[in-house]
């Protein structure tokens, strides 16, 4: 490369826009301003406050018995709920894509409800259902199972919250599956189960993984749907978001920041995982 051309290349590494539509500067200004004011600066403040804390204090905030119990509950319940959603969400997606039955349209609309219904409304409704006197709760308590005010209740609420994520991520992939693949497998003599395990599942596994991590991430941070049914008993049914709120109300900023920082980290990792899975899926499709 000659000196002249390397100089040209260096110039190219500055903000080089492709696309000759007018309005680049204006839209960049609006986006940068709004993004900074609303998102970057607040997050920067949290990061700054968290890094300004002495490491010992940060550790104490996160490792106390109450915090550990909260993390265990949040992670455990979110993971369980995401797994349940992965299994049943897949079935729902399958049924919606492949079968015709009365009420299919209604089912399809209902899948989006957890997304559209305010979390507080979901929270009190779930409590009313699963409490000992509730419609479902009373039958279960006759069998000796208590749901509300236990970790099971927390998990139930998180299932509600994460439901649409799995269904809506898996649906398009199922829909795009070429029927000829399954027909070819059948003609070759494969049983339906074998076809499912060796043809369909591998094709939908990445989407299922993405849906799982999206549901998991959402469940981790969920507040409104859970605080009513959980009972919020420290060390037993206290989720991490509630612990943050409690510490804030007690002006224990360090405690709140510590936990929030850890949660943010976990969210970022999950976001990254989700993005990586999606990018891998895209690369697979392009290579095919």
């Amino acid at each position, binding site marked *: 490369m000659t000196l002249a051309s390397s100089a040209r290349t260096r110039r190219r590494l500055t903000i*080089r*826009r*492709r*696309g000759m*539509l*007018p309005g680049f500067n*204006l*839209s*960049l200004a*609006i*986006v940068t301003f709004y*993004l900074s004011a609303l*998102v970057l*600066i*607040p*997050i920067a*403040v*949290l990061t700054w406050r968290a890094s300004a804390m002495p490491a010992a204090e940060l550790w104490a905030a996160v490792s106390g018995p109450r915090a550990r119990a909260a993390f265990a509950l949040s992670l455990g319940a979110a993971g369980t709920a995401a797994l349940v959603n992965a299994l049943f969400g897949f*079935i*729902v997606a399958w049924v919606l*894509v*492949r079968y015709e039955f009365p009420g299919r*349209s209604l089912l*399809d*609309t*209902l899948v*989006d*409800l957890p997304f*559209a219904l*305010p*979390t*507080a*409304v979901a*929270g*009190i*409704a*779930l409590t*009313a259902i699963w409490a000992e006197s509730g419609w479902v709760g009373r039958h279960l308590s006759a069998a000796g199972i208590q749901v509300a005010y236990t970790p099971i209740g927390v998990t139930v609420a998180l299932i509600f919250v994460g*439901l649409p994520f799995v269904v*809506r991520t898996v*649906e398009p992939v199922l829909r795009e*599956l070429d029927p000829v693949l*399954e027909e070819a497998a*059948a*003609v070759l003599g494969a049983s*339906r189960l074998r076809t499912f395990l060796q043809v369909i599942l591998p094709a939908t596994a990445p989407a299922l993984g993405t849906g799982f991590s999206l549901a998991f991430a959402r469940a*981790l*941070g*969920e*507040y*409104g749907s859970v605080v*009513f049914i959980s009972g919020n008993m420290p060390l037993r049914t206290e989720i991490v978001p*509630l612990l*943050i*709120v409690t510490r804030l109300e007690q002006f224990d900023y360090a405690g709140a920041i510590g936990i*929030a920082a850890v*949660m*943010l980290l976990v*969210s970022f990792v999950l*976001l990254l995982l989700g993005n990586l899975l999606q990018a891998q899926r895209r690369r697979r499709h392009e290579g095919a």
Partner: protein
Amino acid sequence: MTGASPVHRLAPIAREPLAVRLLLTAVAVAFISLFVLLPLIMVFTCALADGAGPYWAALQSPETWSAIKLTLRVAAVVVPLNTLFGIAAAWLVARYDFVGRSVLVTLIDLPFSVSPVIAGLLFVLLFGKSGLLGSWLSAHQIQILFAVPGLMVATAFVTFAMVARELISVMEAQGPSEEEAALTLGASGWQVLRHVTLPKLRWSLLTGVILCNARAMGEFGAVSVVSGHIRGMTNTLPLHVEILFNEYNFVGAFAVATLLALLGLVTLLVKRLVHASGSRE
């Protein structure tokens, strides 16, 4: 988020047996009924548990009215602002390529993956008395936390990207050819936006706006942290529901909840209609 579309037809040789199909359908229906339909029905049943009279009374209480007005006020500010941002962001991300574009897209997705409680915490750290701007704010007698502006900021954060995400994916799928054609025909940037881009986007714009609105009106976690729960002043509808429920005023809580549930249902309905119209074009 898609609507019901034509069913995928396999040759009979490749289909699973009828019994399996019925079982799977039954499982799916049961699952959705238990976890989604039942809570929805519950809201209305509990609200009307004592009959229509107490239901209407709960809705007409002055505190409910101020909660409604406050919720509407917040949405009326937050939704247009986020829509404006959404249009600018979609134009920027979908029509240009530049260094840092993927970082920008990740940043736009960020508030979506953050717990609403942490969102509230962020603004407490920024605007609170011991926060970054705390002393400056009290010196100028501006109150953000525990007042309406705080609610607006927290709600704006949480619903930040809802319009943008909707518009970005659609604009990327549609491609720039129509805008470029308009440019070669002599249109200015604003003419292109007004006559070509926005009309093309009208369905996704509507979807994004109603989703943003539903989330803005229904936001609980973030708003709970920054509001201070001052009855009649900083209680939005969701916070009002919480207060009534914690006071064991179940009919009242569920009555107010029906308003929010209706909002959710209307949102879903509009989304379905938009999807149907959109696919007809």
